[in-house]
Structure formats: structure tokens, C-alpha cells
């Protein structure tokens, strides 16, 4: 009997771990959503989280072709959108680059040992907005 218990212990521990990990992951992900951002008010990202984890690279790769070559900017999958909702702000409200090894993109990519070079070119923190506003429009907004 004692022998059987001793054998079952690692299995039980493994089972417990498997049950706990998804919960932990969910908690981690939740911590990576900026309070007050669009994502904070949503039950899931532009697709369910499980699908985003596996397929986000496919989504943004197709998106980039459509955006760069056809000028379509009104689609759900945008890298700027990822950064906007998932970047973390420190206590002085300064955003930490999202590709740092302890941040939303960087942490997972470090764990999976996948090179992340989106941010060689793309802004890793929200910077200057997704559009610039010409003076004529700025005036228009001031006096609607």
C-alpha cells in the first residue's frame, strides 16, 4: 500500500500541475492588458486567446500585406493594436517596450526561443499615435 502511494505521488503532482498551469497562464495574460484599454473591456482579444497564442503571427503577416500593398487600415489585426492594449506602464506612467524579455511579447518569445524582430522597425511602445493630423483637421476638431 505504502509502495503504491509512493508511486502515485509524482503522477498526482503532475496532474495538479497540469490543472494549475492554465489558470496561472490566464492570470499572467490578464496582467498584460492595460487598464482602461480597449482590451480591458473585452472578454477576449480579436480572436479567442487560445487561437491568438497559436496563430497571431499568421494574422499579422496577412494583415501586413493588405495594409502595406493595398492601404487597408480598417482591419482587426494590427501590430500597433497589440502594443496599444498589451504594453505595460510603470508607476510613472512610462510604457515599457513590449519586446523586453519580461513583457507581453518578449516573455513568450524568450520562452519559446523564437526570434522577435517586429520591433526592429515597429514601435515597441505607443508613440505618436497611428495617424498624424494635419493642421486643417486639427482646427476642424477644435470647432466642431
Amino acid at each position, binding site marked *: 500500500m505504502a509502495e503504491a502511494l509512493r508511486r502515485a505521488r509524482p503522477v498526482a503532482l503532475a496532474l495538479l500541475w497540469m490543472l494549475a498551469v492554465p489558470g496561472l497562464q490566464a492570470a499572467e495574460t490578464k496582467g498584460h492588458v492595460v487598464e482602461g484599454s480597449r482590451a480591458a473591456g473585452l472578454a477576449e482579444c480579436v480572436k479567442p486567446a487560445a487561437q491568438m497564442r497559436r496563430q497571431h503571427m499568421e494574422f499579422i503577416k496577412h494583415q501586413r500585406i493588405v*495594409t502595406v500593398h493595398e492601404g487597408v487600415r*480598417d482591419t482587426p489585426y494590427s501590430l500597433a493594436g497589440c502594443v496599444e492594449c498589451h504594453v505595460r506602464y510603470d508607476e510613472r506612467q512610462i510604457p515599457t517596450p513590449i519586446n523586453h524579455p519580461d513583457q507581453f511579447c518578449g516573455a513568450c518569445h524568450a520562452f519559446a526561443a523564437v526570434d522577435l524582430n517586429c520591433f*526592429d522597425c*515597429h*514601435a515597441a511602445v505607443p*508613440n*505618436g*499615435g497611428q*495617424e498624424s493630423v494635419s493642421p486643417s483637421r486639427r482646427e476642424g476638431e477644435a470647432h466642431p
Partner: protein
Amino acid sequence: MKDENPVIDPERRAFVGLAVGIGAALVAPGVILHQVAAAPRAEPVSGAVRWGLLIDTTKCVDGCSACVEACGRENGLDLQGRGETGSSDKWERQKAAWVRKVKLQDNQTGRIVNLPMMCQHCEHPPCVDVCPTGASFKRADGIVMVDRHLCIGCRYCMMACPYKARSFIHGEQSGQLTRAPRGKGCVESCDLCVQRRDQGEDSTACVDACVTAGHEAIVFGDLQDPASPIRQMLKELPNRQIREDLALNTGVRYAGV
């Protein structure tokens, strides 16, 4: 001959003036609201428009670099890191410049012309012809640009361009703007503020800066729309393409050269 308008009634004038004022006040908010309603583009760009510039060199002022600076701010070129580049002379030659101020002098007459020089957005762009990866391409609305995802940094396009319009990013970049991604190892050039085109704005950064500086030397618009201001000006002002002998049909035209 009898005078048709014998007396000007000052009261009538005041009334008409008031009516016009009220009318303008009622109509103007509608016009402005229409501008604010600009939204991100949802449909692919089409060949129904061809964007272009007309530069009136007689209005371009020697020593003014408002357009160059505005281009830098719009596209994050003012954030460029110097990287490992050695001498400052080398850096001046190598740093990315989408617009350059050029001064031309006719040695026989001494006439000097100032003009901003940028990508000419050719209908038949040599940079697109030579690109081995398809990174250099012409968008349906006539904007010649680089898909940095495909660019391998071979710089054939820089050799092919007759206007020296393209730059290569030699060093690692940081602090890029969300609207203008740019990084080491890619070629880049003026894209007629493509982010503004896709958000439905009606001008480019250089055009706005030139207006603010009080020169109004650059006009932006649709070259295919016969009613557009740029087409009207192209009809009136004597203008030409730079290196028209190459038959590239440039989208940027110059008056007064």
C-alpha cells in the same frame, strides 16, 4: 450712357452682408464636420486616383527647410541614431533624407532655382524594375514605396533611381513612431505620407509646413481628377518633369525650372 446702379443703398448692403455671414456660419460647421469624418481606409486603394505634387520653384525660398524638417517629424527621421558611422561628413551623406533641398544654378545666366527633391513617384519606376524581391512597388494610387518586410537591403533601387531619392538605413534605430516603422537594413523614400492617405487626410507634411512658412510652393492632389486644384495649376503654370527624357511620367512636377 445711363448708369445701371445709380445709388448704393447702405442699409441693403448691411443686410446682404449679415445674411452672407449667417449663411457662412450655418454652412461652415457642416464643411468642417465632413473633414473630421475621415476614417481609416476599409477598401483597397484603386487606380481611380493618382497622387502627385506640383512644386512652384519660384515660391521656394533659399535657406528655408520647413518641408525637410516637417518630413523628418512626420516620419521619425529626426529620431535617427548615428550608429557606428565615423565622421560627421560621412553621416551627413548617409543619413536618411526623404526630401532634400537642391539649388540649381545656370552658369551662363547666373539664374538660381531652389527646389525640394524627393521620390518623383514615376508611373514607370526604375526602382521597381530592378528590385529582386518585389519590395519596391507602386501602389494602385501611384505611390511608389518600399515594403520593408520584403526588402533585403541590396540597394539596387538606389542605383537605379535617377533622382537620388532613396536612403538606406545603416544603423539600428530606436524610438520609432507608431505611424512610421523604420529599421536597419532597409531602403526607404518619400511615400507621400501614406499613413495620411490611408486615414483620409488631404495633404502631406511638407505641404502643410510650406503653407505654415507662408510660401505655398508645394501643392498636393489627385493628378487624375480634372477638377482638382493641382490639375488646374498644372494647366495654368508652365511646368515640367525633371529628366523628362527618361519618359518615366513622374507624379511630381516642377514649375519655374
